[in-house]
């Protein structure tokens, strides 16, 4: 179980890192295609609020998991 937790730690960290360019590229693509007010509002909320929370928490959580910090919790 401990090995699986650590292995998934890499997955969470990579997800956290991967989400940043993915979201930014999608936002740029959609805003360029239709630079409307609603597009700006939506992507601003996603980029400023949601993305940093997901990225930071997944990366940090992944690092903790990889280091075996959660191995004691069974």
């Amino acid at each position, binding site marked *: 179980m401990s090995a*699986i937790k650590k292995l998934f730690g890499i997955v969470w960290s990579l997800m956290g890192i991967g989400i940043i360019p993915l979201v930014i590229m999608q936002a740029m693509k959609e805003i360029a295609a239709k630079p409307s007010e609603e597009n700006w509002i*939506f992507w601003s*909320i996603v980029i400023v609020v949601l993305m940093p929370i997901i990225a930071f*928490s*997944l990366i940090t*959580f992944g690092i903790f998991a990889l280091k075996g910090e959660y191995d004691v919790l*069974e």
Partner: protein
Amino acid sequence: MAQNVTNVSQTEEVSSTRRVIAASSVGTLIEWYDFYIFGTLAKIISEQFFPKDNPTAALLATLATFAAGFVIRPFGALFFGRLGDLIGRKYTFLVTLVIMGGSTFAIGLVPGYKAIGFFAPAIVFILRLLQGLALGGEYGGAATYVAEHSPAGQRGFWTSFIQTTATLGLFLALGVILIVRQSLGVETFSDWGWRIPFILSALLVGISVFIRMKMSESPMFVKMKKEGKTSANPLAESFKQKDNLKMVLIALLGATAGQGVVWYTGQFYALSFLQNACNVEFVQSNLIISIALLIGTPFFIVFGALSDKIGRKYIMMAGMLIAVIAYKPIYQAMYDEAALKTKVEIVEKTTIETKEAVKGTDTITTKITKKSYEDGTTYKETVKTTIPLDPVKKAELAAKDKLKPETKKEVTLPKNSYYKMIGFVLIQVIFVTMVYGPIAAFLVEIFPTRIRYTSMSLPYHIGNGVFGGLVPLISTRLVEATRPAPGLPPADPLAGLMYPMLIASVSFVIGMLYISNKTNNMDVE
């Protein structure tokens, strides 16, 4: 004799716990009521406070304001959580109640965009932020306060009463809105009657403040303070110390994020889906949600109590997993139940009525089409076209493609379909009770008393406020992305479920792998 003394003591303890639960729950329920009347009246608020030129933008602006109310919650959690860990639970969540009530009352008094222009949405936005801040401080305080009064081994049961308040708050909000709307009539309600539910909050909050003033401080906090063990800097201790931070992260990613999206999908998105995708008439759609919420609410207590016996983890995880698997079939069934293309129309009953009236500087043409179907379904379509009398203004608007008619579609379901819809929503409310019923006990038990208010409030409000609170905004957007052209129906009305399903899936995997079914810091202190 000794047995009698023990029995009297136990009875007094239970009676005291009940008083604590009642006083805490009433206040928290009112806070949720305050918070949700805004969301429930999103469409009317958008018409009152945001420019009408683009209805979608106006609705999105309201949703953004709605989201702002949610996004600010974690800041309220930090601010009031810190206060609660420094000066005590009782006074902190008394302050949050006053701020919430004051802001809600004030929203009911703000003049509309027509009267004061840009100041109207600006003031509403600030008041909405204050609501979010207050709510951020309230829930953690109430859950902590109740848990710290509850006997060991029964925290799931007692804190589940606090868990019912969010749903009952929504129920109360829907109920008050429906009663006021039915009493005043749709037009008066849209004009000024919508303010009543906001103004009513002052009375409710007044009663709740009076009750809370009489409550005593949490015994665990009092003991810790006497021993001089309170935290000097709860924020630093919660988030800078690795041992606490790692629990904050696991609480967020493995529990509250998944719980938040399941909560908002089962209650808010279900209402939005009924109204916008299924076009179910306003009163009927609200009744469907209200009845399902009322029937489902006792299950918060059932699952809270069950979690005292078998642990919190597997109940919450089962709720997330079943929700992920069941959402698409449930929503498809809801969509099919209201779909007119599968129903047989009674053509001879179709009526078309056209009215034209001059209102101010505009000519308003209203075309109302009413249709009946063999299964008892009725359909009403209202197409309203507003054209300025001034030919120059008319030409200007035509050039900007702004003379498009507003179309309102209303489907009224027959009894059979109506009950089925209640059933579909009820299933989702049961998922909500599984993930939400035990979560307060889970959160309070994984953090130590000295930083409990701060530490549990943040993951709760990020999970609920950010991940959950953004469900309406993101899901609406995902559905809109499948719309081939403006005015045409979306190609995939279920696309909005992708977001909650994804978040709940990740949360389920993390929760199953990393959350312990046994962690309990309250009984070892």
